[in-house]
């Protein structure tokens, strides 16, 4: 479960402070597929960065499966990212000097014992890249690169997958294939999927949609109500 409590993010440019997120509070239960939507500059990617432990909030708290990641030391934060979160980026973010197989293997090498080679191959097979394992990113198409990125996100079997506009750079066929892979994994493995998008169709396929505008939540289609709180409401 991911819990966000009054999270704020600003950046300081000299004497000027730019507020990006202005106090967000919400909870994402385990296994949910959440789409974060909003116009460009609304703070979607910044929020995703905070949820994934890629950045720290300027104020507020982020809890991930009971772990307060907003004030974790750098090494522990790295462990959270490595073990609990798989990330898929809009621009793939593959390491250009590594082959597809090596890219998939990398999180395993960084975070797990053993070789992981078999698992990496299986995952690449499952995303249809059995013929492209020894290819470098530059030798792959955009769709293929994103499939490598998805395999990489799955390799350590993290309970949460975060995706930042994963279909943003792809044509509709490839975009659909990527989305299917993510959804299928969400259903099959029961992972939480947090996806940032501005594609209405993609957002529509999510369990829940959180809409941001100017750093604030303006819509949450399925706000999480804790069990106790729900009972309390009923009693009233």
């Amino acid at each position, binding site marked *: 479960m991911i*819990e966000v409590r009054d999270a704020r993010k600003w950046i300081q440019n*000299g004497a000027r402070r730019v507020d990006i997120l202005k106090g967000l509070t919400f909870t994402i239960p385990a296994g949910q597929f959440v789409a974060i939507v909003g116009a460009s500059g609304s703070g979607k990617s910044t929020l995703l*960065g905070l949820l994934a432990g890629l950045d720290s909030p300027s104020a507020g708290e982020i809890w991930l*499966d009971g772990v307060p990641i907003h004030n974790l030391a750098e*090494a*522990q934060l790295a462990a*959270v990212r490595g073990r609990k979160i798989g990330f898929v980026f809009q621009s793939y973010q593959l390491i250009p000097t590594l082959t597809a197989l090596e890219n998939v293997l*990398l999180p395993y090498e960084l975070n797990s014992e053993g070789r992981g080679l078999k698992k990496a191959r299986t995952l690449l097979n499952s995303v249809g890249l059995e013929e492209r394992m020894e290819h470098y990113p530059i030798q792959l198409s955009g769709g293929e690169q994103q499939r490598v990125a998805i395999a990489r996100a799955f390799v350590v079997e993290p309970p949460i997958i975060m995706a930042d506009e994963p279909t943003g750079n792809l044509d509709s066929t490839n975009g659909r294939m990527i989305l299917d892979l993510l959804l299928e994994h969400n259903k099959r493995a029961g992972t939480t999927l947090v996806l940032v998008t501005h594609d209405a169709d993609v957002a529509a396929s999510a369990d829940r949609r959180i809409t941001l505008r100017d750093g604030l939540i303006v819509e949450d289609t399925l706000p999480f109500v804790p069990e106790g709180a729900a009972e309390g409401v009923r009693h009233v």
Partner: protein
Amino acid sequence: MSEAPLPRKQALSWRRAAAIAMRDLKSAPGKFAFVVLSVAIGVAALVGVRGFSEAFRHTLGTEARSLIGGDLSARVFGTPTAEERTNVAAVEKKIPGVRTTWVTETLSMASVPPDPVPILVTLKAVDPAAYPFYGEATLDPQMPLPQALAGDSAIVADELLVRLNAHVGQTLRLGGKQLRIAAVLAQEPDRISAGAGMGPRVMISRATLDATGLLAPGSRASARLLMKLPDPMPSGLTPPEVRKDLEKALPDAQVIDYREGNPSITEGLDHATAILSLICLVAMVLGAIGVAMAMHAHLEQRMDVLAILKAVGAGSSDLLRIFLLQTLGLGLVGGLVGVAAGLGVMEALPAVFGKLLPVHTVMAFPWRSVGAGLGTGLLTTLLFCLPPLLDVRKVRPVLVLRRLVESGPEGIGGFFARVWARWLQIVVGLVVLIALFGIAWALSDSALVGKWFAAGLAATLAVLLVLAWVALRFLRFALNRVRLHLPSSLRHGLANLYRPGNQSAAVLAALGTGVMLILSVYLLQSSLLRQIKETASPRLPNVFLIDISPDEIDGVRSFFAHQQGVTAPVELMPIVRGEFQSINGKTLDQIKDEHVPQRMLQNAELTWADTQPEGDKVLQGKWWTKPDAPEIAVGEWVAQRLHLSIGSEVELETAAMGHRKLKVGAIYRSDEFHIAGRASFVVPSGQLKGEAATWYGGAHIVPARIPAMERALFAAYPTVTVINIADMLTRIESVIDQITFVIHFLAGFSIFAGLTILASSIASTRFRRMREAVVLKTLGATRMRIVRTFSVEFSVLGLLAGVVGVIFANLLIRVLLERMKVNFHIQWAAAAVALAGTALLATGTGWIASFRILGLRPLEVLREE
């Protein structure tokens, strides 16, 4: 919410980190070539110097007996007295089977008739039946030494034949004798023990020396007793005991046992090795800075990859581990390349040292030096790379999502915040400084030298960096004012100096350090030589005469009175040798620590004068009036060292007059323009009555007339030796030239390191340059236009580095010369050569590092983007 256990971050295993590091290296091996080269340069220089020193020391050890010519050697300063010979004979008697021989060395004049012009030679007389006990004299043509020295013959160094345009078989006139040149002396086993020669070697037999009449009582000669001990030694007798006996038998002698080597040589070797190692360390530090810059540039370019790695779970310590291993791997490869090149440098050094080396060094693989070079190379590389590597901690994984432009607080608070953010780098910087001190200490074997080297180098680099920064700022300031008036390729080339990622200031500082090092050595050398020449003023004698016998005095005086070109009357001074028994009531043993050589008191050179000599100024007391006054006048320097004042008592013993007490009557300072200034002790003539004296002289002659004078004097007085100061200066100059050549050779490694940094910096901005070239081409620029633009950039960079180096070298040498009380002059020609040379080298290196860019086709690059 209940807190779940935190996932424990497992450190990346070293093996896995090594695999990732290796994968990263393999992705662009060419990019790291400059890193490898940067490490290799310093290691090569250090392994070369220390390896050679190790081999030289090894040779000294294995050839120790040959280098001394015996098991023991005892050098006496003068010809051995009858008493000394008797004492030695007594020692010999105690050791059945021992063999001894005396070797005499002196200076003399020699010529090859019919050419009457003589040259100064260093003469060595040996007993060919005994000499040398170990090793052998190599002759050309090959023949045994006794055969070569039989009868009236001599063997000579090749230099003598060259200078006199003579050949083997011709006649050599030496003293009053005509000798046949029997062979060329190609190698003399104990040359290293003979000391620096003032002229080419001539070797004759002892019998021939006696026949030349060159040796008279009091002549300036030295003798070495060579002793070969029996093997096995007689029971109850050990070499150290024999040595002690010899020291007792010859109390004034310097006794050397081959087992301990020649201390003056090993000390000299240690000092030279220390100085040269430190020069190499400069190249090594510059190389390490180059590696650090290259790694910094590499990490800057890999910022996205680092962010991805962090996003997929790598911690800062994992990244540090990966890049530390990468640096170490590169350092190791560079170190091994450096070791291979260092072995080449080691082989080349004998040629670089030229005639400075008295021994043929037998080369062997220098394990210790290789270990030292490799270890030092790796350590400096690692230490200097730590600050840039630590920057991986600052890489924020959120970079994968968006590039936040966060400049942080401004003003003084912002400055301190930025300093604080880099506290670990500052601590590492201090560790680097301490490590540099430790390395310099280890290389020089002196904590003091280590401390000053580390502080000096750090300060120099800091000042050079500031100078470089100021130069670049000034250029930019000037450029901003005139840029639109400049031709476009010049403007574009100058603007390139400020290209993002260009490490112009660091390149300037590194290249400037090399220029500074080489120019400083040159400026010091030329200033010292100029000073030596300037102090040889017209008022000083430019010709010295030695070993004039008393019966030749009137003749020599008259000779100079009738010579053309003599600008001042010849000055002649008698020298009598005596021994001080006590000074101020203390025996010589009790004043061993007074910083006056014991030999100067045991074998004191005394002269007499009943009136105050010309050029001497009495500082205390007054000159005696009676020729038999029991007084002595002492030079200021010696008086200070021996704590002598007016009325102090000394006990003196001379051969004829025996023992007497004298009181210090005067303390004087000589103006050093007169020959009297050469004596430190003057007594009334009555105090040296009947003593055997040798006379010395000094004259000033118009330089052009010196050869004619030498010719005539040699014809009339063949045993009088003439030392022409101009010849000596030439000889000193050639030795200084050779020493500075060695230093320049090693300082050249620093320039090379600086150029490698430049090349590395160019390589790290290769993609930007490619883009620029492609954009220019797309806009219609020709290749020549791009060549011009880049050439402006490289040559201005070189020129600025030259300016920085020239300014700092002049500042440094000015301070140094002021302390040495030597006049400083700006040497414009040297500065111009340094500037032009650096600009040319920088331009050449720049083109070597970027020539491929020119051939690129625009589409190749644009498509890759």
